[in-house]
């Protein structure tokens, strides 16, 4: 078990390193000078040179990467070109908002997906199965940014139950765990939960239907176990796969919330990425991408480590 965890940890290191390289190099794909965002086109040469050395842009790219990585490890992602503020602080406050949204969406999606999937698997071929399957197809096919608009129209404009924008009464202030703030979370979280809901329903349905046809279930039933006791066995056997799928989904939600955040003006990483892209704010862009991807890498690692804890067979191989 310990060797397994160690192996996973060691395997994650090159991935994490390459993620830093990609996050850094990505922005150099772009044509044009990053300084265009702050320096006027007719700025004198000395000013441009001074700015370049201030942001470290006068050094060769590999050196810039080395310096950037050294500082990033220490938690310093540089200064935003557009706002002049520290990237780390901006990214961290945005990430906590995105994490809140993605976590809530994942919780709704996973719970609903498990219930629907189990029902569909147990009632294979009935109308419940068909309805759950249809719902899961809709879940994976719906453009969620559009669903966000539709939910806004229905539950914010027609029925003024929930606010349509922002993450609190003051627009985007500090998040608080009270009813007032939670109302702002409902629509974006519901919108985002549709994707994991569809995928988890599909997965659980297939797993449960497959499991119920296996001999060990027949044997358990033959021994006279109640329906609930049989279900516990089925649940235990489906858990590792569901965990793996759910873990990946949370990661996808962290990245995929960009569009939903735009719809609901949610002050998260999506908003930050948008700003960074359209203002060509390179440090902010690099920092946001890096932090999001690191979350994804760590999440994958966690899933890899948690899986054998649930299913001991995996740790032994």
């Amino acid at each position, binding site marked *: 078990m310990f060797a397994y965890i160690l192996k996973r940890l060691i395997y994650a290191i090159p991935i994490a390193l390459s993620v830093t390289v990609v996050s850094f190099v990505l922005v150099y*794909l772009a044509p044009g000078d990053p300084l265009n965002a702050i320096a006027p086109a007719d700025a004198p040469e000395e000013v441009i040179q001074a700015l370049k050395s201030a942001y470290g842009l006068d050094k060769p790219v590999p050196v810039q990467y080395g310096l950037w990585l050294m500082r990033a490890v220490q938690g310093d992602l540089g200064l935003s070109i557009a706002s002049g503020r520290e990237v780390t602080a901006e990214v961290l406050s945005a990430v906590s908002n995105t994490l809140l949204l993605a976590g809530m969406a994942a919780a709704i999606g996973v719970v609903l997906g498990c219930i629907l999937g189990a029902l569909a698997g147990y009632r294979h071929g009935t109308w419940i199965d068909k309805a759950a399957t249809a719902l899961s197809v809709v879940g*994976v096919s719906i453009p969620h940014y559009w669903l966000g608009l539709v939910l806004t129209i229905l539950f914010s404009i027609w029925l003024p139950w929930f606010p349509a924008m922002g993450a609190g009464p003051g627009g985007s202030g500090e998040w608080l765990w009270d009813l007032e703030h939670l109302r702002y979370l409902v629509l974006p979280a519901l919108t985002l939960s549709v994707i994991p809901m569809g995928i988890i329903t599909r997965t659980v349905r297939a797993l449960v239907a497959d499991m119920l046809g296996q001999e060990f279930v027949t044997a358990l039933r033959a021994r006279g176990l109640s329906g609930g006791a049989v279900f516990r066995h089925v649940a235990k056997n489906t858990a590792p796969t569901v965990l793996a799928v759910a873990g990946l989904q949370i990661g996808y939600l962290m990245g*995929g919330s960009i569009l939903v955040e735009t719809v609901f003006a949610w002050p998260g990483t999506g908003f930050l990425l948008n700003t960074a*892209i359209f203002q060509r704010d390179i440090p902010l862009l690099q920092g946001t*991408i890096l932090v999001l*991807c690191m979350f994804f890498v760590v999440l994958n690692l966690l899933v890899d480590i948690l899986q054998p804890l649930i299913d001991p067979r995996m740790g032994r191989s």
Partner: protein
Amino acid sequence: MSATLPLPLPAAAAPAQPSRSYWTVVWRQLRRDPMAMASAAVLLLIVGAAVFAPWLAPADPYKASMIKRLLPIGSPGFLLGTDELGRDLLSRLMHGGRLSLLMGVVPVLAAFGIGTTIGLLAGYVGGRVNMAIMRVLDIFYAFPSVLLAVAISGALGPGMSNSLIALTLVFVPQVVRVAESVTTQVRQLDYIEAARMSGAGAFSIIRTHVLGNVLGPVFVYATGLLSVSMILASGLSFLGLGVKPPEPEWGLMLNTLRSAIYSNPWVAALPGVLIFVTSIAFNLLADSVRSAMDIRK
């Protein structure tokens, strides 16, 4: 040198030489599937409306009119109302299908071509080359796909061709994985060894004996990507990273009509309906194709 051994592959596998009978059977299966036929009909309708938009559309999709802004659905002369600049929405939706479908389908086609080639190479050569290629692709798996698409097209700068490149780059690693795993399985089969011993070159072995087995599973996988690609492509335009105004495109229209959700919500939601319908039709058709091609199992 015609090798037609039955293959013990887990995935849907076409015979080494795609015989006419296999595809006839698949086609017959699909034709009997009402879901597949309904999805295909819907897609044909949408594609037809997009392709023939210049002849079918009732009005000029670019012609704006300040006094006819945001007319509701069913207004005389404007069947589906008008957008925020007074342009006929029906005409714009029909014309918009051209770019939206193009942006959704082209990345999958490109990834199908590029990914299959790389996957075949990695799988057939094997060894260190395989290791090197697959480890590099692992890096792309460390990025959630939406983030990767937004990051690449954001870095390259807004624009249609950059979005196409970004989406292709998102799908290539996934296609390579499928192609590589099937190629690796096929390569170890006896008839490949036999072909090699009888003096066939690597290229002709791949072309005549490997490709036929790999194309099936990769094709099935790629059809499943179409729906994702449609949603992502329109999503990029929705963010302002794809098609630029005044070009009609569903995602972009959804974005520019957003301010109208308070005054004219149904008109504002319409472009999304088309993205949704297209994407769900692609998904259902892909499911049907998958099960129809599975008959060999």
